[in-house]
């Protein structure tokens, strides 16, 4: 029987992402439901109308418009001038925020270690596709950023940074989200990796990143010890000590209590999912025992984050 709540995180780059996985990730790309304007021309279509070959829309002609874009076929049919608008291809800003609060450094497999591996994989996909990748570690001590990475050669730098992440002070999501939202110079895809078990609630923090136009995706990471504590050795009369607040909760594990806990956990996850859905955010709750390749290739593709 595994020890309840005990698990180790990755210690090497190979632990973060093996070679086999790396080769399979080369075929994936980050998909945004929104089209973003970037700093330089990239491989991604932007909402900004530009000079690409992809038709976007029509709009009535106004004085001063470039006559090269007038659709003369429509003029011949309707005798009204319309301009053809084209999408412009731009790069994508991919931001990955990793929760490093003490509650994340728990579980078997360890939640923080799982988040590091997932952030590594997502960041690698971004780098491979020439996106502008930024990483943030946040906890009660503040935000630890690694910004503006582009290209496959920055992979090692990103991995080293991820390996150096460790659990810090409790809480800090609200402040961190506010800081990340304000510090975002461009707009793009923001992926938040956390268990969202914030003592003060997650909604205050997430509200900062919903208004900025980023395509936000919340990946809720939970350990099997949280999903099914009885099977992970939680039994009898125990005193549970909160890693964030230090608060003790004395319980006698009974089937009824486990049933109620499971109901509360489902309600919490459903509450987060509904909150995200109502505000246009993506949400996925995942256990740390899931295979990383399955997660990336199946779940995240089904959720529309990757393609």
């Amino acid at each position: 029987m595994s020890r309840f709540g005990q698990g180790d995180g990755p210690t090497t780059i190979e632990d973060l992402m093996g070679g086999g996985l790396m080769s399979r990730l080369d075929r994936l790309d980050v998909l945004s439901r929104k089209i973003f304007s970037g700093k330089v021309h990239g491989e991604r279509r932007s909402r900004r109308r530009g000079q690409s070959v992809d038709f976007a829309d029509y709009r009535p002609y106004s004085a001063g418009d470039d006559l090269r874009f007038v659709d003369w076929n429509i003029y011949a049919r309707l005798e009204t001038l319309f301009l053809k608008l084209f999408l412009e291809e731009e790069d994508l800003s991919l931001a990955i925020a990793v929760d490093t609060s003490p509650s994340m450094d728990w579980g078997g497999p360890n939640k923080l270690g799982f988040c590091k591996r997932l952030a590594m994989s997502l960041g690698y996909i971004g780098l491979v596709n020439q996106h502008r990748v930024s990483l943030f570690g946040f906890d009660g001590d503040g935000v630890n950023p690694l910004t503006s990475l582009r290209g496959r050669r920055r992979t090692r730098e990103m991995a080293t940074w991820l390996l150096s992440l460790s659990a810090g002070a409790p809480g800090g999501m609200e402040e961190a989200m506010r800081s990340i939202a304000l510090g975002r110079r461009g707009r793009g895809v923001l992926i938040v990796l956390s268990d969202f078990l914030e003592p003060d609630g997650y909604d205050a923090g997430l509200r900062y990143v919903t208004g900025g136009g980023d395509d936000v995706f919340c990946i809720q990471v939970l350990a099997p010890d949280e999903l099914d504590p009885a099977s992970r050795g939680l039994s009898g009369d125990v005193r549970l000590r909160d890693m964030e607040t230090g608060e003790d909760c004395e319980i006698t594990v009974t089937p009824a209590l486990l049933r109620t806990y499971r109901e509360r956990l489902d309600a919490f996850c459903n509450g987060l999912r509904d909150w995200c859905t109502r505000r246009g955010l993506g949400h996925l709750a995942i256990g740390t025992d899931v295979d990383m390749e399955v997660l990336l290739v199946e779940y995240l593709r089904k959720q529309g984050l990757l393609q």
Partner: protein
Amino acid sequence: MSLLTPWAGFFLLVGVIPPLLLLYFLKLRRRTLPISSTMLWFSSTADLQANSPFQRLRRNLLLLLQLIILLLLILAIMQPRMEGPRGAGGRTVLLIDRSGSMTATDATASGDTRLERAIELAHEAIDRLHPGGLFTSGDGETMVIAFGETAEIIQPFTNSRAQLIAAIDRIEPTHGESHLGEALQLARVYSINTNPDNPDSPAVVPASLELFSDGRLSDLEDQVLRGETMTFHRLGEVDSVNLSVLQLAADRPWESPSAIEVFSSLGNFTTEDRRVDVQLSVDGVVRSIQEVEIPASVDGKPGRRSLVFAPFKLSRGAVIEVALLGEDALATDDTAVLVVPPPRQLKVALVSEDRQLMARLLGGFGLAKLELFTPAQWANREESDAWDVVVFDAVEPPSALQMPMLTLGSAPPSKELKVYGRQEESQVALQSKESHPVMQHVDVDSLFVQESESIQPSESVEVLLEGSRTPLIMAWDEGGASRLHVAFDPIQSTWPYEPGFVAFLYNTIDWLGHSNEALVQQQALPGSMFSFQVGAGNQDVTLVRPDGSTRSLTADANGLVTYGPVDLSGLHVLEYEEGESPGLRRSVLFPSIRESNIRPSESITLGQDSVVATTGEARAYVPLWPWAIGIAVLVLMLEWWIWSNRMGGSRLRSRTNPIGSS
């Protein structure tokens, strides 16, 4: 519900429960586990507590279950038992009361007697105990005992339903008192099981007793239950009316032996004064009817009214009957009969050494014949002469004299008396048996005896006057005749100068002279024995009982017929053929003092056990400790299941990821 060993359970309770509580609370040392967040756990426990008012109990459910198990085991040790209906199986003794009060006709509305109803109930008990089904015939055994004045085993233990029913139907009423003790003794004797492997230690298996009675039992104070369970089926109605003839006596006046005077005592066992017509019959012919009022009973004692009928001429023997006219619940005690012998003047022989005192006294008694003998004349008398009484005044009587005999100063040769010398020291009278007819109205307070015989009487001799040193007057039966011996010569005492001596002498002659006739003043009661002198030639005789039934009896070599114990009250007639001689008659009085009070008892008390009458089926103590053990085992299994679940035996179904998206 009652407990057989409550103190054992109490001490266990004190000794076991506190240590369990102590151990349980010492055991509750929680291990501390770090967890990512207690937020959900807090809300879960709060939710659970909000939904369960007994959450505090549920948290200590194991302790609660362990306490229940211990309490159940302790309860089992205390051996609880509960009274409940008893079915087939085991040993049962049916005790059926057939005493006089059971002939009361108030058992049912149709006028059945209590005994008839008891037999019906006994049939129902047999149906219950021996249902006769293929799987229910069972191993139960039942015994039937009928009791009244005496107890009789009607049917020993058997599981044969047919035998039991036939035995119960054989039970007939008697008019004696109810004595339960003998019936209980018989039931216990037959309940002894002898182990063939160990015959020296028989085991008594207490039987279940079912008593069918009205509860008027005369010997209850001496009885106890020794582990048996008793069910009391009460019979009769509490408000039944009963009047009875308590006593009947007759006497021939001294001055007119050919007349007779009848005395009776009437009893009222109800709580109201009652008027009743009393009829006097002589040989079946009504002689008078009087209306009398009998006072109500007080404190359970019957109201009494004495009635003296006017003397009337009756120069022959007759059967006198006093009857209460009118119906009540118990008809048996409404009639009393008395056999009055014909007046007979006695022939007395006095054997003495020419002493005048006795001759003068006896001469004044109006005897039919008084003949004086010297010892020599007595020895040479004609054997054919018959005397009603022979008096030996200070002379040694001969042996083997089959006539009633009074001896004075010289004891007759008898196996009943052992004369071991003379008591030469003077003595006075110590104790007189005044209830004996001989000693009635005899004042012995100033009696002074100078010299007497030292006699050791046997147990069958009745001592009528005990002196301060030796027995002075004694009576017994020997050779079919009564004997009375005065151990001192009256001349050697102050007695001849006192009026009591005359009364004694008259009583003695009268008693000895009529001792073989039916008693007039003192009647026999059920349970007593009869003896008839029928003469040597009549070997087979017939006794006609009061209910008309007959019994064939056989006389012994001396012509003596004995019968008993008598079980019916009324007139018993012994018929035998000797020319035209009438049959010998005996009357038996109903024991009204005890049996005429027919108010049934609500309960009977045997020792410390009070058995309340039941109108339903038989009850028995059902032991509850096996149930307690069984429930304790079930709770133990439940406790084990809960414990194993808590210790990780239960697994919530794991859900595959993603979660929370359903």
